[in-house]
């Protein structure tokens, strides 16, 4: 079992010094997600501006309790989505998801995933994939709730 493939330096760095941590205002939606198997938890808020094709991820703030993988994943995620047009952020999410579900067979794209490529090793540890995805799932859920709340009707494509 190659432990270092899982616990890359980048992951341990984000774990020790998480980015964008803490709950902030303003936000349109807050969600609380749990990993039922281990109890890891995340409370996450999103602040989205604009709507439809113009929607932008203004901020993602969170409070989380969990293992190194889940903590680091939350930190890397915020780096990757904050400030991006929503459509682009969603596409990064898809790329990360594909990497995680690839059982180690997917080559990570550093241009898209930046520090996220450090999670390539996690894909080989099925039990830990959920840890890496916890905050991403929370973000997706919160974003969809935030969009539901905006007055402008949301097109199917952006959801």
């Amino acid at each position: 079992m190659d432990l270092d493939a899982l616990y890359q330096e980048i992951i341990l760095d984000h774990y020790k010094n998480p980015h964008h941590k803490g709950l902030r205002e303003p936000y349109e939606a807050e969600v609380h997600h749990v990993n039922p198997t281990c109890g890891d938890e995340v409370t996450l808020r999103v602040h989205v501006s604009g709507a439809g094709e113009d929607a932008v991820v203004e901020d993602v703030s969170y409070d989380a309790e969990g293992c190194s993988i889940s903590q680091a994943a939350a930190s890397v995620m915020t780096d990757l989505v904050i400030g991006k047009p929503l459509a682009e952020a969603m596409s990064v999410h898809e790329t990360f998801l594909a990497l995680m579900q690839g059982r180690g067979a997917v080559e990570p794209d550093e241009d898209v995933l930046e520090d996220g490529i450090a999670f390539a090793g996690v894909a080989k540890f099925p039990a830990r994939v959920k840890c890496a995805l916890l905050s991403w799932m929370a973000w997706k859920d919160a974003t969809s709730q935030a969009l539901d709340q905006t007055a402008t009707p949301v097109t199917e494509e952006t959801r």
Partner: protein
Amino acid sequence: MTVTDTRHALPGLLPGLDLVRADFPILGRTVAGGNPLVYLDSANTSQKPQVVIDAMVDHLERHNANVARAMHTLGAESTEGFESARDKVAAFVNAPSRDEVVFTKNASEAINLVANTLAWNGPLQVGPGDEVLITEMEHHSNIVPWQLLTERTGATLRWFGITDDGRLDLSDVDDLITERTKVVSLTWVSNMLGTVNPVADIARRAHEVGAIVVVDGAQAVPQMPVDVQAADIDLLAFTGHKVTGPTGIGVLWGRREVLDQLPPFLGGGEMIETVTMARSTYAPVPHKFEAGTPPIVEAVGLGAAVDYLAALGMDNVRAHEEAITAYALQGLASVSGLTVLGPQRAELRGGAISFELDGVHPHDVAQVLDSRGIAVRAGHHCAKPAHKRFGVQSSTRMSSYLYTTPAEIDALVDGLEYTKKYFKVS
């Protein structure tokens, strides 16, 4: 002539039947003082191919651990074995999503899961004025759960009757399927009469009035291709031990919208999202309905079993059953004093054939056959109302499966003639 003699090359028999039989260790057994085993009780439980047994042994000897909750190597291997069985089962019945496959302990629990949870608060709750519709040809496992539900909630239980030739009597369908009907639950293939029911037609009628459609697939899934999407039903129950898998596992497939609307059944580990002493929230399906340690080694066995069936091809299995059933109906017709219950044409039925033999009680028939190594079932086959409909208390049932040979049917027919002689009925 041995029971594996292939001189009878009926059209439709599984290619390489001898090799298929060699997959099943028990078929090499002798019983009753040296007679080769003629196992004609597969509707009761099927035999297991080596590949199923080996998968279970490999799991127990090398990969055993609890699932989901364990993050060590064995836990990951065990979870992989368990969850990939869910994928295989989903593919086997063409379920749109693996998450719609719930593992239960048997088909009975799968049906009870639905009937029990419909009693509780929720969008599908059944109450006074509501009706549940079943049929007179159901196995007790698709009768008693609905009796309990309707008795306990004040709802009404109604049922389709059976025609003289053993088919569902649909003449009063307009009276039976109404706005009051909340649930229609029926068997796809009767375990007593062998009848194959027009499930898709009934599902369509039921959906017109907004009822949910539960199908007991315990006998259908083993012997014919089953596609839950094509049949457009809502829930399907079946059982591992009849599809060449082990006991201790059953399957409830359900459309996600329906499963999501049912409240929890058993509470406990694995079915929760979070628990405090005051209240709990529940995991999404399928886990919501899988409280406690699931049947892990059983799922591994079931996965190997449906793989085995898929490799043979369910169309081929069905063709084999039809060929054997036609041959058996012919053979049984040659026995004077014997009356077959249910449809007389093989293409209308599955591989279970119940019959009466004048002057000999089914117990005694089964006993004499057993002394010649032939295993059949005698009794009411958990279908008392269907027996009562035909004015009989019990019957003898032969039931074939993918390993049954025409020579085994010959042995049965010979055995029945011998039985008549033994009991001195002409």
